[in-house]
């Protein structure tokens, strides 16, 4: 008999933003190819705890299940990562699932990450085109420049970098690595550079780039291997230069 073939989960449940969190354990039969999302789907089809108590399906965010939409970020065995690419066979058991700790819990493993989208507005993370009419091709770009921009443009807004950052908290209001890296992306685009000054200015005040403590956790947890610390260093330099320039302009 294959006695060992089951998978143990400990999941932190919270009914609503104000409720007290509690833990529930689930035991699922093991089969090959399981990941955290497929396990949560199985729990939904049979929502019974390990102790045999009937419970509700677990609420969590998910969509593409191939690590490109950024939805299913959570803490898995304490680490900020995407649940779809968390393969059960590679995880230590019991597998602990918790919601991100630095974002408001909606329910169970789902949190509100709207702050990143607000930050992207604040730093004007777009190319200011004149309109969507046919105005001919965009600026030419070398292969080298494209290859520098593309990795930055693969940010999936999962917020793992923010969750893992010791400086990202209510005290500092730190904007976080993801938004800073987008500033680098748009400031290096030939048309996007038109808003460069405004973007850098947005990173100067409260919660700005100076809050970064160089812990480097961001780059470690980023599921897309985005060179976040390099982005912070480059943008930080540019912010500094602009700030000094502003001083003399006054």
């Amino acid at each position, binding site marked *: 008999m294959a006695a060992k073939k089951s998978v143990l989960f400990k999941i932190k449940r919270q*009914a*609503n933003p104000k409720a007290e969190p509690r833990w529930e354990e689930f035991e699922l039969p093991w*089969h090959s*190819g*399981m*990941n955290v*999302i*497929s396990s949560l*789907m199985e729990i*939904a*089809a*049979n*929502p019974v705890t390990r102790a045999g108590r*009937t419970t*509700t*399906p677990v*609420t969590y*965010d998910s*969509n*593409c*299940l*191939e*690590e*490109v*939409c*950024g*939805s299913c970020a959570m803490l898995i065995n304490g680490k900020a990562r995407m649940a779809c*690419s968390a*393969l059960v066979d590679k995880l230590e058991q019991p597998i602990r699932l918790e919601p991100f700790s630095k974002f408001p819990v909606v*329910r169970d493993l*789902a949190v509100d*990450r709207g702050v990143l*989208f607000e930050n992207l*507005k604040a730093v*004007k*993370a*777009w*190319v*200011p*085109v004149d*309109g*969507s009419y*046919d*105005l001919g*091709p*965009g600026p*030419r*770009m*070398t*292969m080298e420049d*494209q*290859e520098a921009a*593309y990795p930055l*443009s693969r940010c*999936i*807004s999962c917020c793992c970098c923010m969750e893992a950052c010791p400086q990202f908290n209510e005290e500092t209001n730190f904007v976080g690595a993801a938004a800073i890296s987008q500033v680098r992306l*748009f400031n290096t*685009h030939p*048309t*996007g550079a038109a808003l460069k000054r405004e973007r850098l200015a947005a990173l100067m005040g409260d919660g700005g780039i100076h809050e970064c403590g160089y812990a480097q956790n961001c780059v470690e947890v980023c599921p897309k291997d985005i060179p976040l610390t390099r982005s912070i260093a480059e943008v930080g330099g540019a912010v500094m230069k602009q700030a000094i320039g502003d001083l003399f302009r006054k």
Partner: protein
Amino acid sequence: MASSPKIIVIGGGLAGLAAVIKIAEMGGNVDLFSIVPVKRSHSVCAQGGINAAKNLKGEGDSTWQHFDDTVYGGDFLANQPPVKAMCDAAPSIIDLLDRMGVPFNRTPEGLLDFRRFGGTLYNRTAFAGATTGQQLLYALDEQVRRYESEGKVKKYEHWEFLSAVLDSKGICRGICAMDLRSMEVRIFPADAIIIATGGIGAIFGRSTNSVVCTGSAQSAVYQQGCYYANGEFIQVHPTSIPGEDKLRLMSESARGEGGRVWVPKTAGDRRDPKSIPENERWYFLEEWYPKYGNLVPRDVATRAIFRVVYEHNLGIDGKPMVYLDLTHVDRKILDRKLEGILEIYEKFVGDDPRDTPMKIFPGMHYTMGGLWVDFNQATNIPGIFAAGECEYQYHGANRLGANSLVSCIFGGFIAGPNAVRYARNLQAAASNGHFDSERKRQEEINGGLMKAEGNENPFKLWRELGELMTKDCTVIRYNKNLQQADGRLCELLERFQHINLSDRSLWANTTVAFVRQLYNMLQLSRVIAQGAAMRDESRGAHYKPDFPERDDKNWLKTTKAYFAADADEPKFEFEPVDVSLIPPRARRYDVAK
């Protein structure tokens, strides 16, 4: 009507966002509804690229060639004028995306690079690594965020569309939607609405689609009176990675960059694939289709893989899998042009496709069918427009790779301005009573679900639905099975009446939302099964061994399903196809067209 009309767009993928941009630019106000934050929409999953005949490779490509490839690839089922308009517009759409900052791959001169895709002999596909959909979606998302910060667009994310609000004359006056957190059901008035809610993968259980692609919104408006066209045409992508929770796409661009599909010539050959010599491998696509080789259209490749696996019994290790081999391609090229998809294979399977051939199998991928629309993207209900995968217009009986992104953006660019023009000429409704009655109707449905005391688990019903639809309504179709499938769907609908919600809380209850989607999936499934049963021919993705030929005499026509509420089932009409530009001819891929 107001000079600054209110338009509601449902769905924030490429089609929805493209429509939003045009409406905002014309001075309209937009409410944008989406189940997920729009940046997480399913368009992110598109990998290989976007087609446009820019002819930057000295091949003499033209928009007419693109048009001909698309119509031919779709086996002549698409109305031709809108397809031509799309292909004509494609180069300017690429230019626009380029201006918006999409990091398209470049040539040494700094121009856009293009690669080959299925169903064409031209290098016509622009790409940003192997995450083109993601890059395109982000570019449009950023422009919409800019309009949002200027107050022209209001986003309702984490909201689910439930129904259109129709007045006493059957004119759409807004929508009814549900807040997926507070579970509040609310009405939103609008002068016109645009459905841009994507695909229907969830009907097939596991597919390459995202979780939100249930077709629920399309099905809801179909049940309110919209025609649903060509529902029987379902694309099964030849190369996906089978998985527990979904079938992950392995882009056609893998073959566009030289990937070769093969199986060992000997059944049960258990050797490491790299050690199997060339003359003991069967490159069946290259043998059967010498002109197009591995880049035949998807329906053709999928049927070939089925034949090799199920008729020749040559699946790897006797399992339903074949090799997709990139190990002969220069690693630098792989990293520069395909990294995104190789990373998916590595992360989810654990092998590096640069070193070892990938194991793949066909998976449900796309619906060619969808809401019926006219050339202005308007459905038959006044005030309801549709764009993107949720409508039927551009791909006929089979979609060519890298045409979906261009059809989404083009469809949105047509739907947005037409919705604004329609709204500017709209007369006010006689009364507002329909808003309250629609909200009450939807609240009662939720109330009924919450109280239901049956014994059916919705997630288990959904699994049964997926298995049934995958077995009988995908690659190979028999009338007997299709009729039985429709009977089983009726049984599932009956069992749905005895459902039991495992969660009755009134906050962020994902089960309620899912159960409502499930009901709509079941209703739409009958359109697919019955439409397939009726069409006694083989055309594009629709293949019946008992009727192996295309039959233009009887079946060169669009299937239009409408919901007969009294009978609680679909009824069908047919409409001739506009073939005014290219006369239908036989579709072959073993020789040049």
